[in-house]
């Protein structure tokens, strides 16, 4: 492999691992915020327990999202300094706003939410989880603004060999950013919904003691998954009007169209191969759509079935199916991401800067070593996350530590500052 391909692989692994974790984070944060709202408003003990149980699963996963996010944040400057030098003055603003409006506030308030449990006023504590959820959305939004610019550059001018931000509103309003944001958000809610339904179905199938708890959770998960599936497909479909000509010709798989696009691009940018790899783009796109059909069918039937108490209690094949569905939204999200990102190749900034030109001047050894190190760490993280989530999900609400009251009364605190 060429060094640039290794660097691409490294970026793809980082983004892909991060994307898996944040998809679940966004979905579960929403569900936990809804549960905590119910618990706070009604004071119902079961919803308080639900908040703590799902909140703990959310946190285990969140930790993975945050550490892969840290790596992500440094990837552009590390391996793609050509991109930051050429276009950083434009899409770098979106990244800067993301770190300040979203990442900074989200982390700060999440710390308060975790460690301030039973310490803060309950309404303030509820407000915290909503701030955390909304700033997680904001994070996705500004990242999609940055990504939307790379997909479909708008709002810039070329000056002295580098791009300059000319129209901030145009960059933010870019349909390639706006539509993709809602699409990704829908996908994340779908992921969270199926996760909650699948874990609940496991407990219903095993007839564990918490029937009422998981019946309610199953309803909430499926109740979110079905509308989220409709929502996400709507914003997915709308994006097809904004596909780049090269991606769209490869997707249509029409030889003549591809040749025309190639000829137009070569006339504009000089000789070269301007089409993304046909196989991966088409396979990813088809996979995304097929799995969406699977999910909408399962979610639709399940929403009907969950109206029948006996089915919820003892229809085991259905419970099995729902648990087996947990990975499906993740695979679908990754397929959609491959379709979008591989489909942009060979461009880093579509029509303006190629991926090869975007790379930092690194040696093959440097990239090989870092790739091996990051791959090992991500593999370990994914394995630990899967193992811990499965373990805590199986153990059920009885073993939750989050939000536990301290066993013994704390002695009088002494101020330190």
């Amino acid at each position: 492999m060429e060094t640039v391909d290794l660097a691409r692989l490294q970026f793809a692994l980082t983004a892909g691992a991060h994307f898996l974790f944040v998809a679940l984070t966004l979905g579960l944060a929403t569900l936990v915020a809804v549960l905590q709202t119910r618990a706070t408003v009604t004071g119902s003990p079961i919803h308080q327990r639900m908040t703590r149980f799902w909140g703990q699963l959310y946190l285990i996963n969140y930790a993975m999202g945050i550490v892969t996010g840290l790596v992500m944040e440094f990837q552009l400057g590390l391996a793609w300094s050509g991109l930051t030098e050429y276009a950083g003055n434009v899409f770098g603003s979106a990244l800067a706003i993301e770190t300040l409006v979203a990442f900074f506030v989200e982390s700060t308030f999440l710390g308060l939410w975790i460690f301030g449990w039973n310490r803060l006023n309950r309404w303030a504590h509820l407000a915290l989880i909503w701030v955390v959820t909304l700033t997680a959305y904001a994070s996705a939004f500004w990242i999609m603004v940055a990504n939307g610019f790379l997909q479909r550059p708008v709002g810039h001018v070329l000056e002295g060999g580098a791009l300059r931000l000319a129209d901030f509103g145009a960059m933010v309003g870019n349909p390639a950013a706006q539509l993709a944001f809602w699409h990704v958000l829908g996908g994340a809610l779908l992921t969270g919904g199926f996760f909650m339904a699948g874990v609940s179905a496991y407990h219903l199938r095993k007839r564990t003691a918490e029937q009422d708890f998981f019946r309610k959770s199953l309803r909430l998960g499926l109740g979110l998954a079905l509308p989220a599936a409709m929502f996400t497909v709507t914003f997915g479909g709308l994006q097809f009007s904004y596909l780049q000509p090269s991606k769209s010709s490869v997707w249509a798989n029409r030889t003549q169209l591809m040749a025309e696009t190639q000829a137009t691009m070569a006339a504009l940018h000089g000789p070269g191969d301007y089409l993304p790899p046909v196989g991966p783009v088409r396979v990813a796109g088809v996979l995304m759509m097929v799995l969406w059909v699977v999910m909408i069918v399962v979610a639709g039937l399940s929403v009907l079935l969950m109206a029948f108490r006996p089915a919820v209690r003892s229809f085991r094949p259905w419970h099995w199916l729902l648990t087996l569905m947990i990975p499906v939204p993740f695979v679908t999200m990754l397929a959609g991401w491959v379709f979008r990102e591989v489909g942009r190749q060979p461009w880093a900034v579509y029509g303006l800067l190629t991926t090869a030109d975007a790379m930092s001047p690194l040696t093959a050894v440097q990239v090989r070593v870092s790739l091996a190190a990051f791959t090992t760490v991500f593999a370990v993280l994914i394995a630990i996350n899967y193992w811990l989530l499965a373990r805590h999900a199986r153990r059920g609400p009885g073993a939750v530590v989050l939000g536990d009251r301290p066993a013994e009364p704390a002695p009088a605190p002494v101020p330190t500052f």
Partner: protein
Amino acid sequence: MEIFILAFFALGYLVLAGADIGVGMALPYLGRSGDERREVIAAIAPFFLGNEVWLVATAGVLAGLFPELEGELLSGNYTLVVGLVLAWVIRDMGLWLRGRLPRPGWQAFCDGATVAGSWGLALTWGLLLSRVLLGLEGPVAMVPALVVAALFGTHGLTFAALRLRGALRERAGVLTGGGGEARAYALTAAALLAVGVLAGLRLPLHPGTSGPVLVPVVLALIPFLVASQGWVWWTFRHRVTGPSYL
């Protein structure tokens, strides 16, 4: 203005996160048993998330206001920055995952990750700062790097002395003899600030072109960011009274 914004977040990181990195480095010294270590971690638990985002914000400000420097600094110090990020990930995983399994072996393993990651962070920072400040590379750069790491460690001890109780507090106060805890913290914080400012003065700080759009946005945000952190500091202003969620 761009330079002040960058300095604000970078120096904020050094002082705030410097303390929890230092506590991580001193973890085997401060906590001799699993339970003691858990209490030491509780001293930084509510803060470390809110502290490390100062570096996230610094990277964001670099990306937005100094994109050229961002590329130069990160790709120019590729291996060091990769090492820094990996140490950061390992340390965070140690902190986050420690309490998720009630097994002594697992907790010792996670504590090991926290300590190794904290030392890794302090040393890569030391190497980065000595490269920027003194232009040193190779084995000789380890000397200033160890000095910087020692500074992080001392800063961690002074912070721990402010947060812990009893025997743990005494151990943390070993360098100051137990008195003037707040003054000792202020001193190590000032030393870290000085290192940060001196390194900053050596950097080619030429802002990019998005300042007119971005600077007002960032300036408007800063009071809210500081207020949100202030809420955390106020909520957890008392000494640690027992183990936390971590």
